């Protein structure tokens, strides 16, 4: 994850990438919206901080979700990380590949490691709670510096 598509921040020996043109929330989720459908995933920072993903728990299609409510969780050896939905809507698709290859969340968090597609409702309102990559970078950096952990 390097090159012009990404912004980067370095904390000690760790480099965290933030993909441009996506939107972000403070917990470390990204959102890419197209034609009213939001693709949602975890940031490079969140996946590095969480550790090697062993399980991903996601809602089934047709499930209604509200912004701020629990969407699912990722399980690593050290913790179960709850994920709250960054937008409201209905689950259109969950990334079934993660049932077989949860490590995709670590290997390609902005690509093949996506979590769900959500058919959004009221996105104009949800959009106000999201920030651009440029705005998210210093937020993430502050979180990383505070968490500052070498292992997990």
């Amino acid at each position, binding site marked *: 994850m390097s090159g012009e598509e990404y912004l980067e921040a370095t904390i*000690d020996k760790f*480099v965290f990438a933030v993909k441009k043109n996506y939107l972000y929330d403070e917990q470390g989720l990204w959102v890419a919206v197209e034609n009213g459908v939001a693709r949602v995933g975890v940031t490079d920072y969140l996946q590095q901080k969480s550790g090697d993903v062993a399980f991903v728990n996601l809602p089934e299609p047709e499930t209604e979700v509200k912004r701020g409510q629990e969407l699912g969780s990722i399980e690593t050896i050290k913790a179960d990380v709850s994920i709250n939905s960054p937008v409201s809507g209905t689950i259109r698709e969950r990334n079934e590949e993660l049932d077989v290859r949860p490590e995709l969340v670590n290997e390609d968090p902005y690509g093949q490691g996506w979590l769900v597609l959500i058919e959004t409702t009221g996105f104009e309102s949800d959009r106000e709670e999201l920030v651009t990559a440029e*705005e998210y970078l*210093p937020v993430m950096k502050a979180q990383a510096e505070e968490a500052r952990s*070498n292992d997990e």
Partner: protein
Amino acid sequence: MVDLPKKKVGIIACSGEEIPEGTISRVAARMVLEELSPEDTVTLCLPLFLAGDENERAFARFYPTIAVDGCEKLCAKRATERYSGPVSGSIVVDELLEGRGLSPGRSRRELDEEGQRSAEVIAEEIADQVGRLLGRKRAIEAVPVVATTAPATAGGTCCGPSVPVTQVRIGGAPVGLVALEPIFEQFCEQGRLDGAGLGEELLKTVKLYNYVPDAAEELHKAAILEEYRKFCRGKGK
């Protein structure tokens, strides 16, 4: 507001599997990271380092790194020198313990009482070296290189990717200086365009991230000041 990278010390332990001293190196490194100098240290993962991870190697290239080896084979030290550069400190567990009349214990799997005591002694030695490398007594609180009390502004990027290095001609030879551009950004933002002592201050800040031999200080100061002026002109200042 530009944030300069905080200077930290890397610790690379051999974790040798065959002898208790290898386990002691591992335990001691973690003790320093978790308890003795948590704000000032980073542990580097030797297997990852050897497997070619560029982040681990870059850190050891540009920041002071202490190698902690179980025995005279010096795997951590040699690996660092091979892939990054000279180490700033080297601790050989079996030698140090012998010198102090201590035993590594009998178990390599889980340190027994003697092994645990020895790990604590090694950890203290590492922490002392960390303090010396940072030019102070062992500190629990982080000392920021430059006060960054201003809130982070949107759109700012940190010193990425990885560690920023700029090549500067000094005394006719190219020299890589870490963090030069962020330092210049910061001075420029503060409006430090000229004035007595500017060269001295620039050099002092550069020295926080780079080793500058005493004999080469004047040459470095002159070259850095010239680069800084070019930098500011490029910014229209």
